[in-house]
């Protein structure tokens, strides 16, 4: 099993490298315009320059923090709301129509009103990110809290657990697989929205850098930014998977 995984890993990496090589060749042969598609060599060289000169870190940290704060806010409020809604059928009936109306709103559509109310500030970005990123974790939490087994409710009743004990000892750990799965999707959305708010509301960060590079035809810089964002997404997703595997280590391993 493990060997197989490693093999498929290798193949996936080899495939990606192959694409890079093709891109390099196409660019060198001027099949595609190097102005719009600089070869990977130039992009990586630009990336290397930014690392050496240290200019990469400020926007990277800016974007990461923005994403992180928005995600934490989304996750905390998503889990709390999800617990309230999931634990009570009455709340579900009452709130579902409203949630179903608000949920499909594109988060970028609330940037203009958010700017009106909160100005071009970090508060605005974090609010927009949290609004857009809350849905996966909220819906997963509602499901997780709603599907606590009947039997465990009986066990809790027979032991006369208090409402808080029930939440802490049974409902939250029971909903944790759903919460974590939702939070992982939310984090991806938070990254997207961090970049979008930077582009739309000129907040400093990777998103703004990419936009400025594009406007002044510094395409190597543009793609260097894209590569950094891709790596960020990859790393945080992997980190969350590790956390998930640790937090849910009690789950049976299926072959």
């Amino acid at each position, binding site marked *: 099993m493990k060997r197989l995984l490693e093999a498929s890993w290798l193949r996936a990496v080899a495939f990606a490298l192959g694409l890079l090589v093709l891109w390099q060749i196409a660019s060198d042969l001027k099949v595609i315009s190097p102005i719009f598609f600089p070869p990977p060599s130039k992009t990586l060289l630009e990336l290397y320059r930014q690392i050496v000169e240290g200019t990469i870190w400020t926007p990277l940290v800016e974007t990461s923090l923005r994403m992180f704060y928005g995600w934490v806010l989304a996750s905390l409020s998503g889990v709390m709301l999800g617990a309230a809604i999931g634990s009570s059928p009455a709340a579900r009936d009452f709130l579902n129509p409203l949630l179903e109306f608000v949920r499909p709103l594109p988060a970028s559509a609330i940037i203009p009103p958010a700017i009106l109310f909160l100005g071009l500030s970090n508060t605005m970005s974090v609010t927009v990110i949290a609004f857009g990123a809350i849905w996966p974790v909220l819906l997963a939490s509602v499901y997780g809290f709603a599907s606590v*087994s*009947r*039997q*465990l409710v*009986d*066990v809790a*009743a*027979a*032991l*006369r*657990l208090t409402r808080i*004990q029930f939440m802490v*000892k*049974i409902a939250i*750990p*029971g909903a*944790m697989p759903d919460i974590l799965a939702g939070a992982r999707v939310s984090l991806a959305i938070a990254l997207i929205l961090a970049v979008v708010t930077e582009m739309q509301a000129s907040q400093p960060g990777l998103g703004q850098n990419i936009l400025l590079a594009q406007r002044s035809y510094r395409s190597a810089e543009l793609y260097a930014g894209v590569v950094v964002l891709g790596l960020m997404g990859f790393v945080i997703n992997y980190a969350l998977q590790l956390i998930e595997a640790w937090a*849910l280590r*009690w*789950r*049976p391993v299926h072959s």
Partner: protein
Amino acid sequence: MAADKAGSAVSVRGVSMAFTTGAPVLADVSFEVREGEFFCIVGPSGCGKTTLLRLLAGLLKPTGGDIDFYGAPIAGPGRDRAIVFQDYSKALLPWRTVAGNISLSLEACNVPEEERAGRINALLAKMNLQRAAKQYPSALSGGMQQRVQIARCLAQQPKLLLMDEPFGALDAMTRQTLQDEVARLAVEQKTTVVFITHDLEEAIYLGDRVIALGTNPGRIVEMVEVGIPRPRNQLLTREDSRFLAHRHHLFGLLQGH
């Protein structure tokens, strides 16, 4: 056992139960469970035996009649009454180890943290679970999982142990082992047990007394005093003439309903 002179632990008088939808589940059920008695309730599916157990646990309230526990009416669940559910896989916390699952009862009973480990170890030893202490339920066999649930119930030191077809999902060998262990524990701990099963032989083998329930609506059709001395033996007791006589008698009654 010498339970005859003991007081009454549970008193059920004229209890009926109907859910809002449909026909009554139980009609005019009355019986007494003596202190320290192993009391078995046997009946076909749909006779309301699980409902009866949930009434005793206080998880349900009867629509008619009275249930007393040591002289006081049952108003709701209490930690002096523990319930072992049939579906052990759903009654355990899958994210807690065996020791952690036993700990849940101690936490609910507000046992101070420094006392818990000692009590958990004693229960692990009692239920032959020492080697599984750090394992998660999903890694255990059904029989082991049911032992964990029983250990968790014993952890709350109940005066009454309610068991809802606890061995119904286990294979025959495991079932017999656990039957003997529970019978031994009940004597050792002097716990009153109300044990529900659809297996007539299991009821006679384990019980001091057995009541048989009929269906539509659930009602008592017979009560027998088993009168076979303990400890009982899986081979010899089942060949005992009294065992066979009860079996014939109750078998006919249960078939007729």
